[in-house]
């Protein structure tokens, strides 16, 4: 059994792809190429930092009924579904607030990307997103962003692509959001560390993934993508209810779910909403496990706790 790994820079972060297979390196390379090609296509289509992305074109036509590709249609539909499911704790319309708070360029390579200014627009409720058969419309003074869902959604697509590739196990990481399945080189379940919010070199918890099913893990919080604007600190976690950086005691929230999209969304929703909604989603089976880190330390919430 061989373990292959490739590191790549995309989506403003580090992409780590790892597979375990009996096949040779050429086979692994062809799989990695396929995955990276898909990541590039996704970024090209949905990045808000690109002038030529479908998302930017869509935002430019805000207020008008706009034809969308099937892929965009699916992502819009998913975004709307999750916004409703989280009662607005996830909202794809927070982009103007995010930019007003200071997060304007792609991170960590601001020089590589374009800043398209949406600060004059407003955060609106998810009801304002109209989706038709092959078109969609957002209010004229709003702008969409898939930053809160894109990585998880893409992770699911990538994992689906590995289904028939003769792979014994894999873990894929898009900037810290992880999806994994199968076993490691020693035939053991994957063990995923949870980074310490206060000391990035340490882990506070190790999640043992079930090997017979897909496991997705995502972390959200206020410890990264932060800065200072006009003398005031900001971070990228915007509370859609206030349109401002979330006022939360939680440094990071890590969730374990059945899909990458679930994990991406619920990590943010828990980081903003806190323990109460987290318990509700755990009881409903949408989150398998949740680890909250505050200044007082880490706490794990599981079903029944």
């Amino acid at each position, binding site marked *: *059994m*061989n*373990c*292959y*790994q*490739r*590191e790549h820079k995309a989506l403003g*972060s580090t992409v*780590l792809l*790892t597979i375990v297979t009996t096949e*040779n*390196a*050429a086979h*692994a*390379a062809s799989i*990695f190429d396929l995955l990276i090609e898909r990541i590039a296509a996704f970024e090209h289509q949905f990045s808000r930092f690109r002038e*030529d992305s*479908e998302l930017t*074109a869509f935002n430019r*036509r805000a207020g008008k*009924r*706009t*034809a*969308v*590709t099937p892929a965009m249609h699916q992502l819009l539909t998913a975004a709307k579904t999750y916004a409703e499911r989280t009662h607005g704790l996830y909202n794809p319309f927070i982009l103007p607030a995010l930019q007003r708070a200071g997060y304007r360029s792609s991170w960590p390579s601001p020089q590589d990307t374009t800043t398209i200014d949406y600060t004059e627009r407003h955060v609106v409720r998810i009801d304002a997103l109209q989706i*038709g*058969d*092959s*078109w969609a419309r957002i209010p004229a003074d709003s702008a969409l962003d898939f930053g809160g869902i894109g*990585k998880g959604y893409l992770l699911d697509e990538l994992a689906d692509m590995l289904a028939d590739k003769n792979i014994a196990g894999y873990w894929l*990481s*898009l*900037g*810290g*959001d*992880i999806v*994994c399945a199968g076993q*490691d*080189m*020693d035939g053991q379940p*994957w*063990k*995923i*560390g*949870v*980074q310490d919010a206060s000391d*990035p070199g340490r*882990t506070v918890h190790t*999640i043992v993934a079930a090997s017979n099913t897909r496991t997705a893990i*995502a*972390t*959200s*919080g206020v*410890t*990264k*993508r932060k800065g200072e604007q006009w003398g005031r600190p900001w971070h990228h976690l915007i509370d859609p209810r206030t349109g401002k950086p979330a006022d939360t005691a939680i440094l*990071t929230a*890590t969730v374990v779910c059945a899909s990458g999209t679930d994990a*991406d969304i619920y*990590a943010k929703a828990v980081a903003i909403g806190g323990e109460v909604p987290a318990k509700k989603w755990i009881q409903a089976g949408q989150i398998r496990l949740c680890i909250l880190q505050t200044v007082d330390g880490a706490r794990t919430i599981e079903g029944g706790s």
Partner: protein
Amino acid sequence: MKQYTVTQSQLINPDTLLLTVRPKHAKDQLLFYPGQYAAIGFKRFGRPSPMRCFSIVSSPNKAQELQFTARIQGNFTCSLAELEPGDDVFVRGPFGNFVIDEQYDRNVILMAGGIGITPYMSMIRFATETQLPIPITLLYSYHRQEEIPFFEELRYHEQHNPNFRALFFVTKGTAAAPKGSKVLQGRIDEARLRQLTGGHFGRFTYFLCGPKGFVESMRRMVTTNGADPSRVVSEEFTPTSPANAIAAAPQHTIPRWTYALTGASLVLAAGFFMALDVDRALERAALAAPASSTTQQTPGSSTAGTSQTPTSTDSTASNSTPVPTDTQPPMMYQQPMTSVS
């Protein structure tokens, strides 16, 4: 290639674009017969797009503007839908023989399925404007009544052209006919056609336009009932329709000798580098021969052996040791760790 400017871009139903363009100069005006189509292209980020064909919807009497209708369902039409007033488009054409011959076609039935209405709109507009003395009946099949493109306009033509009438067939949803129009539930069928023609199928010229299945079934229906096959004219909206017959057109005309010289230089350059490679490979083989007297080393084998092959398939490799990677040199294995994304 004629140069036009977008004057209006609108969706006339959720997935149907109506694009209106105006010639940049008087010499760019397109002369066409109602029912013909033209190829459109545009520039995207400075580069010319492929050209695709679309039926012309406007009447040739209004040469100062051209209208095209397109169903938005692919990259090209999505990009087309993004064009805004003031954007440039290029038009080639006209093409096609899907036109009414006033001398030959004395009684016309137009049968449209879905977006197949587009070439007929030009014919119908032209017929109203000129009060064409030819009876024209449109049988238009669409999924839902509320999404029928040009529904109101077709009713207008019924009221202003005594020789024109339209029957709408809706296959989904409810049919509700506004006063003065005929909207029927279901598909265009033989019984309805027999009623319209009085059973004299051979007295009419039939124009069929729409998806392949629609065109084929309508053709079968009319020809098996006595229509003259030479009077059944069709245009299919499929990937193999004339829309794809015209490839991307170059924006500039380049003399043939330029292509010839470019081709010759490519051949010469390729030959030169091949010769250089062979020369270097032979030199390397000659140097390697004394060191491996018992095995024959072929040129290039040393590099082929290491590329993209695991340097160590060490079964004892734990997660903290270097693992084979598909890139050289091998990188240190990184443990999965979730962090704020």
